[in-house]
Structure formats: C-alpha cells, structure tokens
C-alpha cells in the first residue's frame, strides 16, 4: 500500500530525514514514534505530497507521489497534527466541500456525515462555523472529513491529541475497520501505550533515521514499548 524508499529530506544544513525505508501492507496499522523533531511530521508530509523531498521515492498503491500526485491523493486521507480548517465554513459546508472534491454522491455523503457525526456526537454542532469549535471538535471534524471518501490509506499526525477518551476509543475502532476492509493506517504518536495496543507494526525514528522497525513483538520483545523506546533514545 505504501512504499517509502530511501527518503531523504534536508532543511538547509539540517538533515530532517535520512535514507528512510518503510513498507506498509494492506490491513496494517503502522505506528511511527520518535522524540520531538525526529522527522516524523516531515516523513508524513512527504508521503501525502505536501512537501517536496530531496531523494528517494514514495509509492502509494503503486503510484509515485511525485509523478502521479493526483492518483495518489485520490486514495489517501491526511490529518495533520494541528487541524487548521477553513474557519469561515460551517462543519457541514466543510464536509460537503471535501465530499465534492472526492466526488462522493449526495446519498453516501449524507449517510457518512450522519454516521460519523453521531458517533463523535457533533452532529448538532455541524451547522455552526468552524471558528466556534474547540480543538477537539476540529479534530473530530478532520477525522470525519478524512473518512468521507472511504480512503485506502490514512495518514495521521498525532491523531489522539485533543480527543476525549470516548472519541479516542471510537477512532481506534474506525482504524481497525479500515484495516479489516484491507486499507492501511500510518500514524505518528507520542502515546506509547496506544501505539503498543493498537499497532500491528511500529517504526522508531531518531534524528531522521529509522533505528528500529517491525512487528510489535520484533520491536519490543518481552519489554514494554516505553522501556524499549527510552533505551533506544539513550543509545
């Protein structure tokens, strides 16, 4: 589903990501962890094609994000770490805008907005301007928008930040549903307990380089993910 081959990205003299290789198969939930400034967001932004990179190749379902960006973007969805949405729109208008872009028909969009709006308990707020939303509500709206076109691959940067416990639980369920339908999830998080319970595979990045990746068992063995992460960080 997602192949990242030899990805390198620099900002001036600073190497943000160096020769990163990562493969995600359909049906996998792939966690991406690392300290602040390790290169997680740079990698995720490169994957969704909103940031140019210096070297390497990113393939989504066989399409290159550089050569065929539109083909790639049609099957993915992205939720950034800070959901800056169009504040001049209402929740409904924003979701409709996204649905229009992905050519989701009226019946289907209405059904999905209703389903996910009710799940996250924001249906009654969707008529309000986004400018009046709290951070958590914006995050919920960004999640609903991401699920609007039934994407094959969902990229999320710190998706649980700002969500209440119930919404976090719902999101985890939605992530599993995507994978059961042969989709894939690639997300970054600082909440190691969540990563440990949720992910099929995990990658740890430090100073732009992958220092460990694999299934949860391969990465942590008998230890807790937190212990492994802290040990690796200290090395």
């Amino acid at each position, binding site marked *: 589903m997602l192949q990242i081959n030899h990805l390198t990205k620099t900002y001036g003299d600073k190497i943000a990501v160096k020769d990163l290789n990562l493969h995600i198969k359909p049906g996998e939930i792939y966690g991406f962890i690392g300290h602040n400034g390790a290169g997680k967001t740079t990698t995720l932004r490169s994957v969704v094609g909103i940031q140019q990179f210096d070297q390497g190749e990113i393939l989504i379902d066989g399409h290159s994000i550089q050569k065929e960006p*539109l*083909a790639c973007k049609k099957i993915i969805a992205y939720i950034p770490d*800070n959901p800056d949405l169009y504040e001049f729109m209402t929740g409904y208008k924003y979701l409709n805008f996204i649905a229009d*872009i992905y050519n989701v028909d009226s019946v289907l969009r209405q059904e999905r907005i209703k389903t996910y709006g009710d799940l996250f308990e924001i249906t009654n707020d969707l008529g309000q301007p986004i400018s009046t939303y709290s951070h958590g509500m914006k995050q919920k709206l960004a999640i609903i928008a991401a699920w609007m076109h039934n994407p094959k691959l969902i990229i999320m940067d710190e998706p649980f930040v700002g969500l209440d416990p119930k919404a976090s639980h719902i999101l985890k369920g939605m992530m599993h549903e995507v994978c059961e339908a042969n989709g894939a999830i690639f997300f970054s998080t600082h909440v190691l307990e969540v990563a440990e319970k949720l992910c099929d595979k995990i990658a740890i990045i430090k100073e732009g380089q992958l220092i460990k990746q694999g299934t949860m068992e391969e990465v942590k063995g008998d230890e807790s993910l937190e212990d492994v992460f802290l040990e690796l960080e200290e090395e």
Partner: protein
Amino acid sequence: MLYILVKKQLAEIFRSFFYDPKRNKARTLSSKIIMIVLFAFLMIGILGGMFFSLAMGIRSIITLGYGWFYYIVMGLVALFLGVFGSVFNTYSTLYLAKDNDLLLSMPIPVKDLIVSRLVSVYIMGLMYSAIVCIPSIIVYFTVSAISFLKIIGCLSWLIVISIFVFALSCLLGYVVAQIAARLKRKNIVTVFISVIFLAIYYVFYAKAIDMMQELVKNTVLYGQSVKNSAYPLYLFGTMAEGSIVGVVGYLALSLLIIYLLWHTLSYSFLKIATMTKTTTHTKINNKTFQQHSLFKALLNKEFGRFMSSANYMLNCGLAILFMPIAGIALIIKSQEVIAVMNALSQNVQGAIVVLACSGICMLASMNDMAAPSMSLEGKNAWIIQSLPVDAKMLLKAKACMQYILTGIPVCFLSICVMIAFKLSFVSSLIILIFPQLYCLFTALFASWIGMMRANLQWTNELYPIKQSLSVTICLFGGWGVSFAMGLLYMYIGHHLGAGIYLLMISVLLLLLSYMIIRYFDHHGNEKLMNMH
C-alpha cells in the same frame, strides 16, 4: 500592575516599529530608525503639513478678531479626524483584544485592565487630533501675540478636544461592539458602515475647500450667528484664546465626561468582553448535501472566503459598489460628463469610446480579490495541497471569482455608459465586450501573480490583503495600464481608429490570458506544492 498593563498596551501600539510581522521577527536597529522616521514624516510632514496649509488658508479669520471662531472651525476638524481615525481602533482595543481572556483569567483588577486599555485609546485619539491642533496653534501664534493666558487656553483646547475625541470614540466603539455582538452577518454590516464612513469622508473632503472659502468670506456673519445662538460653542473657541470661564467650564465638563465614561465602561466592559457572540446556524435541507462539481466546490470556497472577511471585501472588492454608483451618477450627470469627455477627447475621432473603456478598466482594476487569495490559504494550505485537486483548477476558480465579481458590475457600468453617451451600435458593442476581456485578463493575472508571490506565513490577514506585492502590482499596474491605454490612443492610436486600436489590445489581452492559462497547466502543481 497598572504600570505593567499600560506598558504592554503602549508596546502594542508601537509594535510595528520594533517587530516585522511579515518575517515574524524583531526589526534591526536601522529598520527601527527608518520606521520611526517614516512615521514621523507621515504624521508631521504630510498630515501635519496638510492641516498647516488648511489653517494658513483661514488665518485671516484671526486677523479679523475672530480667533475664537478660527479655533471652533479647526477644533471641529480635529474632532472629526480624531473620531474617524480611532473609532474602529477603540472597538478592537477595548472589546476584541486577543488577550482579554488571558488577562481576565489572571488576578488583575478589572479596573486596571480598563484603564490600561483606555490609555491606549486616548493616546491614539490624541495623536490624530494633535495632527490638526498643533499646526492650528502654531498658525494662530504667527498672527496673534503670545501671552501666558493664551498658552494655557490653547493647551486646554488641545486637552478638551482629545477628551471629546476619546469620549466619542468610546461611545461609538461601544455601539459598534453592541451591534457586532448581536449581528449574524457582521462582515457585510462592517463593510456597509465602512462605506458610509468613506462616503462621509469623501463628501467632506470634496467640499472642504468651498466650505473654508465661504467661512473666510463671511466670517463676521457666521461668527455673530454662532455667538448669539450657540453660546457653548462660542465658549469653546474663547477657551483657546485664554478665556478663564471657557477654560474652567470646559475642563470641568471634560472631567464630568471622564467620570461618566468610566462609570459606563466599568459597568459594561466585562459584559461585552465576555459576551457569547451570535453565530449563524445552517438549516439542514435538501441543499445541505447537494453534490457539486470539483470546480464549483472550489469556486464556492473562494466566494465563502471573500464574504467571510470585511477587510478582504473592503480592500479588494470596493469596485463592486463603486461601479454601479459610478454608472448611476454617470446617467444623472451625463451632460457634465459629456462636456468633460469632449474637452478631453480634443475632437479626436473615437476618443470617447477609448477613454470610456479606459475609465471602466481603471475602476475595474480596483477589484483584485484573486491577488491575495493564494496567500490567504495561510495555515489552511495543507488542505488544498493534500487533496486531489489540480492546481490549475484552483487557480482558475480564484480567477473566476474575481471575474464574476468584477464582470457583472462592469457590464452594468458599460450599459450606463452606452445610455449616457447615446453610443452607436458598434461603439456600444465595443464598450460591452472590451472591458469584459480586460476583466478576464486581470482576473487571470491576479491569480497568477498571487501564486508567484504567495506568502503563507502571515500573522494578520491584512498583510496579504493590503500590503502584499501582488495586490500592489494588480492595483497600480491596472491603473497604469488603463491610463496608458487612453493616453496612447490620443497620441498614436487614433491613426488606427478606435475599433482597430481596441481590437489589437483585445488580441494582446487574449494572448496574455492564454499564456497564463498555459502556465497554470504546466507549472501550477509544482508551484502549489512548493508553497510553505
């Protein structure tokens, strides 16, 4: 506590001298000096000089022994400028301050917070009124002898005016805050009020010279009339000339005003600053989930963005209002305009059609909403960058918004021109079609330059809207091109005749438009992805 708050308020007022919002960092020492010198030049040199000339123009009133009348006139000008300049500032300083929530959550006495905000409002009002008052006082003493009482008088006059400005600004700011808190379509009303203010300003400005001449001619008549029927106003003038009664009376009145203002604000400030604002709520109906094409979705987004900001509408779309007004005025005043056009055209054949096209294009150039549009994506740019949207589609949607918002009023204005000038069929066709081609080109050009000069790193939307290079190029470039088009015809183009001359320009505009579209097709995606 109060000292810290006042210091913070003053730092905010003069922030632009020390901080560069475009680059989001502190200015260098040389940049700070340049900013302060430029500001001083603008305030003292240009604005001060303007009012110095105005005061010089009516100083004969002083020599006639009506110095008090001179001070009334200049005092009213100062009052007008002060209130006009600081009413919206008062509203935003008192009630829209971004740190209201933060400061109110801290153990700060509310009265300290209000006083610190009021000091800031007072200083702004004082700055505006002093631009008129100080030159007026200087001019007064070039004619009248200096005395201790007169100095006390004119200083009291300056203080009283600044307090009146302060009180009126606070009052109007309070009214604006009350209206804004209750309105649903706040942006449209803000535009409407601003346009009314602008209209009053321009009417006043246009008639100022005539009014001043009238006052100078009939000083004695108007002076006596004020003295007999408006004694408080007379006292206001005599205060500036050192009348003890005037000074004491008006200073006492100022203290009373400050007391009443304080009493009202301390009662209402918390209520307004913490008021939950009315918001619009979309009603769910069949249209809520209506499916649109990709282009229509992008176009709707652009219209939504434009309608969401009063600043955006006022600075980039004022011609939407100006053009119909100009069209109606043209029909009403057609005889006078025809006379002016005949004089301008110097009997050059076809000149009226070309000059009319040039004038319409000049007005249309005031609409440049596509120019800051890409920069206005700002922090939301990730949305459009991560969606499967072809950049050419986005850029065309931005251009299309500008074309629709400009093309329709241009069409109305063209029809008014046809009626006013009673043009022939062919000339009418030219007047209808040529400005539309110009609108098409300027919309595409604005979209293109907006993408080439996009800056997503702004902290206040006014920077892309008012101060970006793309907006400056579109506005002044449009004026320059329109003006040059008329001028070129008068000197060279008339040899070709209006039809062929405008046809050649039309071909050029279409060619350039085509080149811009080709650029969108080939480089749009790359440019869009490289915007950060």
